[in-house]
């Protein structure tokens, strides 16, 4: 990532020195035109919570959905989009992503609740744009799965092109990544002689690490509770407990102020975490991947956890060998709030089709299948009052599709976040000739020309790295 940035800077400098751009011109680049009101006319509206509305207008005002109905009117300066023959659906919420993270895993310790994904966000990651082009507007950016208790998550709106502060989803529930099974055990690491393996090495150890952490967190909370009570009583000369950044997030979990998103595969480990959570009195908000959720759907539903799963990935490792594409439908029918996630920059671009797979495998209704990528993941992130359905007063995070989003032949025309356009296919197509020209100019720019006698340029690397925590791909591909 660092190198790519340096190259970009060199290119930029070269452009400036070549007189093609002036620094002030760069600073003054106009934002895409985004009027405060947009009227989307005559669409088929997939509201998610109130069925499908035909030939319906939706008015967006100041970032919110202001009106839904027929023959709505907009002021003269509003943007009007004719969506005749097109579908309007809420922006897709991806409940498991590692996009825009410069690094995904802090893997040196078994408990890394002191680290935050918020500190490693790269708003220029081009895959964000590609996800917008797939109708995705919200991401749950999770720490990797290297530790039983991992780092803190960040929920973002994909405001690609805007400063990082504008990405942060206001009011989203804070969360933390837990992980169970092979990744935590570091099963794919070679067992080298003379090298001490990181504890834990078995599922027994994973349970013990989590139990130990919450035992310490409970004591820590007690220290603070006692201290705060003493302060309240007006006692003087008190010494506050030492702050512990590792245990603070776990105290928040115990207090119900932070959601646990737990990477899991097998039924036994799912049950293990449910039992620990019950014992310590907290809820697991979502089991992520939860590939064998279908075996213990009853227990997950009883605990009140959500399930956020792959549509159909399986067999990429032993613990994923019992994964079945019917998992989604079985969990949903058991009353679990279920979502389908990507865990991959690539797959995130077609979550619409991933959700449709629950109709192919397991015959979920269209209504239920649409929820898998909209209102259900929104509930799982505590943002269901803001996004996940098309209702008056909700955020104007929407996408217009040129066909039913569950059709393999459909694609996104326009994606809105807070009423502003962040992807528009027509504009994208129109800009291509200019971009090709710009690329040619950059290639001709002095620093990019092979120079005689100098150090030869580096050979290109393979495909640029994309973010894929769970390594779903087989090792090699034909």
């Amino acid at each position: 990532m660092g190198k790519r940035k340096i190259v970009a800077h060199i290119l930029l400098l070269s452009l400036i020195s070549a007189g093609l751009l002036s620094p002030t011109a760069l600073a003054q680049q106009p934002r895409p035109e985004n009027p405060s009101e947009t009227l989307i006319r005559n669409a088929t509206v997939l509201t998610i919570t109130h069925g499908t509305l035909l030939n319906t207008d939706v008015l967006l005002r100041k970032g919110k959905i202001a009106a839904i109905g027929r023959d709505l009117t907009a002021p003269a300066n509003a943007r009007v989009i004719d969506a005749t023959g097109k579908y309007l659906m809420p922006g897709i919420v991806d409940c498991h992503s590692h996009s825009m993270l410069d690094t995904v895993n802090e893997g040196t310790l078994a408990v890394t609740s002191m680290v935050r994904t918020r500190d490693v966000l790269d708003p220029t990651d081009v895959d964000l744009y590609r996800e917008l082009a797939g109708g995705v507007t919200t991401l749950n950016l999770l720490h990797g799965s290297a530790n039983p208790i991992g780092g803190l998550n960040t929920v973002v709106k994909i405001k690609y092109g805007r400063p990082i502060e504008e990405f942060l989803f206001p009011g989203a529930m804070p969360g933390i990544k837990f992980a169970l099974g092979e990744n935590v055990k570091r099963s794919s690491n070679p067992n080298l002689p003379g090298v001490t393996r990181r504890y834990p090495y078995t599922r027994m150890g994973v349970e013990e690490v989590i139990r130990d952490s919450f035992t310490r967190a409970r004591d820590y909370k007690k220290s603070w509770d006692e201290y705060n009570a003493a302060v309240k009583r007006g006692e003087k000369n008190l010494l506050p407990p030492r702050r512990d950044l590792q245990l603070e997030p776990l105290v928040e979990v115990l207090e119900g102020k932070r959601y646990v998103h737990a990477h899991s595969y097998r039924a036994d480990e799912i049950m293990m975490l449910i039992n620990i959570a019950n014992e310590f009195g907290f809820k697991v908000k979502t089991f992520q991947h939860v590939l064998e959720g279908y075996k213990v759907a009853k227990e997950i539903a009883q605990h009140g956890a959500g399930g956020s799963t792959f549509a159909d990935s399986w067999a990429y490792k032993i613990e994923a060998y019992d994964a079945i594409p019917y998992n989604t439908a079985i969990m949903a029918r058991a009353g679990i709030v279920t979502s389908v996630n990507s865990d991959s920059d690539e797959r995130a671009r077609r979550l619409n089709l991933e959700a449709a797979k629950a109709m192919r495998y397991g015959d979920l209704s269209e209504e239920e299948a649409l929820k898998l990528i909209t209102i259900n993941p929104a509930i799982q992130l505590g943002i269901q009052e803001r996004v996940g359905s098309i209702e008056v007063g909700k955020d104007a995070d929407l996408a217009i599709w040129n066909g039913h989003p569950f059709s393999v032949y459909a694609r996104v025309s326009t994606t809105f976040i807070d009423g502003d356009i962040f992807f528009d296919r027509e504009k994208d197509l129109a800009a291509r000739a200019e971009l090709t020209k710009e690329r040619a100019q950059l290639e001709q720019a002095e620093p990019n020309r092979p120079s005689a006698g100098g150090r030869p340029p580096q050979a290109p690397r393979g495909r640029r790295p994309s973010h894929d925590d769970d390594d779903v791909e087989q090792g090699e591909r034909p």
Partner: protein
Amino acid sequence: MKSMDTETRRVGGAVKSMTLEKRNCGSAAQCGKAMALAFVVLLLFLVTSFAQQIGTLTTQQGAMPARGTYAIRNARIVTLTGPDIENGTVVIRDGKIDAVGVSINVPAGAQTIEGRGLTVYPGMMDAATSLGLVEVGQGANGTVDTSETGELNPNAKAIIAVNQHSAHVAVTRVDGITHAVTLPLGGLISGQAAIINLVGTTPMEMAVVPYAALVINYPRLGGRRGDFGPEQPAQDITAALAADERQLDQIRKLLRDAEAYGRAQDAYAKDSTLPRPDRNIVLESLVPYVRGERPVIMRADREAELRGAIKFAEEMKLKPILLGGDDAWKITGLLKEKNVPVILTGILSLPLREDDAYDTLYENAAKLQQAGVRFCISTGDAGAEVRSLPFYAGMAAAFGLPKDEALKAVTLYPAQIMNVADRLGSIEKGKTANLVVTDGDLLEVRTHVRYLFIDGRRVPLTSRHTELNDAFKNRK
């Protein structure tokens, strides 16, 4: 772990616990309880085995269903090589399509399938998988047979290692993929690919063409990045190009040796007074390929690799098929001029470069089709996700490829490119009866496969996944 039959396993377990219960019952009451339980278990066992007899012959063990005579009537038939038939009949007999048309006589004794509201398609073919060669990729080396050690393995044959009982086989076919190319992956010359039907009890029962193509990994600048391998250290471009050239020379030398070997053997066959050349099974395996009698699949994605592969094939007089082809859209003119076909595997990959348009690979196929380049669409997946083939084609159709072309890109075109279009790829009298009957558009996600025929055999729509689903979906 391979080919577990959950249903059987579950029932087997229950029967075992029943006998234990009987032996241990102390009091009469306990015994009565045990008897009641035993009865329930027995009933369950009977119901299950009965159900298996009528509906779900166990598919995971790879037992091959018999060929039969079938007539699918009143169905929409998408023949691909002729016009669609809105309401017609397909007759299947002795493994072949016996008749297809509007007014067809159903032969006596044929099992008829009512096709009202259904559509009959030719089975789909994925031209670049490693089906049967790998069961579980990560952390389960014992189930991986994709890559032989060393760089030059022309005599490593995929058909030898195909595990016909792999759970991937049934999982793939129940989604309408009836046959596939399975190919080795490693080194510079990986080995020989096979075309297989996705049914059979032995590898040769599966084989459509056991030795269908040679697979060469055209050298890639900077090496090939395995998904888990450490990132290669940066090389300067001159050194990287030289390394590629050395690799190419390794391949060149072996192919030339094979050419010479073939000539020597031929000469000796004609004139036994010549010194007898020793036999060499490695070189011998290459002879049909260096003579252009069989195709050579060359893996290449970037423009420079694609151009290099075409040039190399020309130099060595090979019959090339390009595999991968992410940058094929950049060289459509050359591909058309040289009539080189491309198996596109990257439709659903992220674009190669950061500044590529977001839909570069989605619309790759459309650009080849518009330019008249021969192509087909593949998942390029090792096995587990080959079932998603229709969605790769569908995505290409969402981005400019006409729908009928998208359908051909996973049926007729791969058959043509792999030289089996005389047998497969469309619904025509005399072709192998690899057919899929669906309740909707074959490429749509929401469509269900209703009947499946491979090699004229009616294949049950069960797999490891349906069996696990059946075992757990009603757990209370």
